[in-house]
């Protein structure tokens, strides 16, 4: 599970949960694998990303690389910046661990890089 995916997952549909976002990450195995860097693509994805959530997630995994806490302006041509974001969004991957609903505490296991977000019928 890449942090891109973490950025768009929520446990809101659990009964009784109102926001369910962001999910907490507990990782026991994190891998960084190289992915082709496409600066204009990263620049296009960034506006769709919750910056704070990305920052906290990456920081908790030790991969924030001293990026600014606030999304800077005019990043489109800042290749160094985009390269770091590329790494955080697409190269860092949680292989084993779990996601945790911030409200209910419900845990979602991550195995071999795949999060199991299936709920039982009585949870929705």
């Amino acid at each position: 599970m890449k942090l891109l995916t973490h950025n768009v997952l929520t446990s809101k549909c659990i009964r009784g949960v109102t926001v369910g976002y962001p999910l907490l990450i507990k990782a026991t195995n994190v891998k960084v694998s190289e992915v082709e860097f496409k600066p204009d693509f990263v620049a296009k994805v960034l506006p769709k990303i919750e910056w704070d959530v990305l920052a906290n997630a990456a920081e908790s995994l030790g991969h924030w690389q001293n990026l600014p806490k606030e999304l800077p302006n005019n990043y489109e041509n800042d290749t160094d910046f985009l390269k770091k974001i590329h790494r955080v969004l697409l190269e860092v991957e949680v292989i084993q661990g779990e996601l945790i609903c911030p409200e209910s505490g419900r845990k979602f296991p991550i195995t071999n890089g795949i999060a199991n977000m299936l709920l039982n019928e009585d949870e929705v």
Partner: protein
Amino acid sequence: MSQIPTPFYCLKDFPNVYEPSEDTHLFLDALEKEQQYIVNKQPLFICEIGSGSGILITALATMLKGHCCCFATDVNPEACKVTKLTAKMNQSIVESVEMNLTNMFRCKFDLIIFNPPYVVTDSDEIGGRGLNRAYAGGMSGREIIDKFLNTLPTILSNSGACYLLLLKENNIDEIKELLQEYGYKNELVIQRKIPGEHLFVYKFFK
């Protein structure tokens, strides 16, 4: 535009995953026909629901040369594993998640594809996380399809498009009407008669 090659895949270790079949290939042909439209649209967030072997979402990732964020869901854990592997085998990236439809995503998608379990079966055949989930569609083959249709307005971006495979017995006119009420136009992309099944791929968009 060029033909889209069928992605490589290997189901040897995954006996419970749906083997790409006539419906899968019809869907691939639909994507090929729509290639120009899809490429022009530059979809950023893409999701395949029920990815099975993963060849459809991988074909899209390849078509868009990785300039998109590709997600795949399935209720079958083996399918999620193979989907990830299939993407990798074809030098693509797909984020695979075990999930019911798209119910744990908060983002909207610019492109959604779904080759659903469309076969008319008893309702109680829809259960568990095995191979039966690939085809068991319950009453009129519509039980999973209808759950999906109800969520479409909340998961498809305003400029987005959704491709859905349907069977004649699914009462396609009724589906079109329902989606018209939600404000969607429809377009028949491709249809094919195979022994015992008349299959259609429709595009829905605003």
